[in-house]
């Protein structure tokens, strides 16, 4: 990819996200079982949750690369940046989900299994961030964090994908339901899929910036 294509990427992302936002409000139809316009929050809430999941798996990936790929500091930074962003996207997914719950279930919080699951995931990764801030030695911090993030490979899919399918919940069925069928109107799915891609691209951009910022901060601290 040449330099001018790289420079154009952020603008392409702006356009993609603007299109998804437009699609969420004007292109996608309303979902039948939802109250009023509340189904439109789907195009924000679901991609945010999806991106959080991607972020946590990215953290696990870079943690594995750190442990078995030479213990390079930049891999540790990449893992930490991914967890930070995953936490941010997870919090935003929880907030948007609560707004939707207020409309549909008449309460921001119901201790629904889906709601509880995401809180448990956020607590898990909140502990990762606490762990990092508690260990002063850089290499020990990186090692402990990497092992912890790899445990997330088990924890995260369990709470994201297994719990919703084995518990009774008020939450709408997953996009691909228990019969392994896509149960969504075509235009809704188009906007949702577009949102998945744009939010993932946004995460990758923010991850790149965050990792580089951490490197600069480490260097400034060392000087």
């Amino acid at each position, binding site marked *: 990819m040449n330099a001018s294509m790289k420079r154009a990427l*952020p603008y392409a*992302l*702006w356009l993609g*996200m*603007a299109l998804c*936002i*437009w699609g969420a*409000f*004007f292109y996608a139809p309303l979902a039948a079982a939802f109250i*009023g*316009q509340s189904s439109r929050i789907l195009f924000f809430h679901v991609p945010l949750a999806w991106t959080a999941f991607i972020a946590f798996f990215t953290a696990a990936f870079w943690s594995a690369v750190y442990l078995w790929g*030479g*213990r*390079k*500091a*930049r891999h540790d930074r990449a893992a930490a940046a991914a967890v930070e962003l995953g936490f941010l996207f997870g919090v935003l997914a929880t907030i948007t989900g609560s707004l939707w719950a207020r409309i549909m279930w008449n309460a921001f919080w119901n201790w629904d299994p889906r709601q509880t699951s995401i809180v448990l995931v956020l607590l898990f990764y909140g502990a990762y961030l606490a762990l990092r801030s508690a260990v002063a030695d850089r290499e020990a911090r990186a090692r402990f964090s990497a092992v912890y993030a790899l445990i997330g490979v088990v924890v995260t899919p369990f709470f994201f994908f297994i719990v919703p399918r084995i518990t009774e919940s008020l939450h709408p069925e997953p996009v691909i339901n228990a019969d392994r069928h896509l149960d969504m109107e075509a235009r809704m799915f188009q906007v949702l899929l577009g949102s998945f891609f744009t939010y993932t691209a946004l995460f990758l*951009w*923010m991850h790149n*910036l965050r990792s*580089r*910022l951490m*490197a*600069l901060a480490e*260097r400034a601290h060392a000087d």
Partner: protein
Amino acid sequence: MELGGLGWIFAVNLIVWTGLFVYLLRLGRRIAQLESTSGKPEENER
């Protein structure tokens, strides 16, 4: 909710997204500037 209301929410979303976008763009430029003055990270790490 009437179309007018949706239009307002759409506009607010677009403004928020554009604001975030501009912030990230400027942050990226600032980071690149700092990296060029302090050297690329890989040069200083094992």
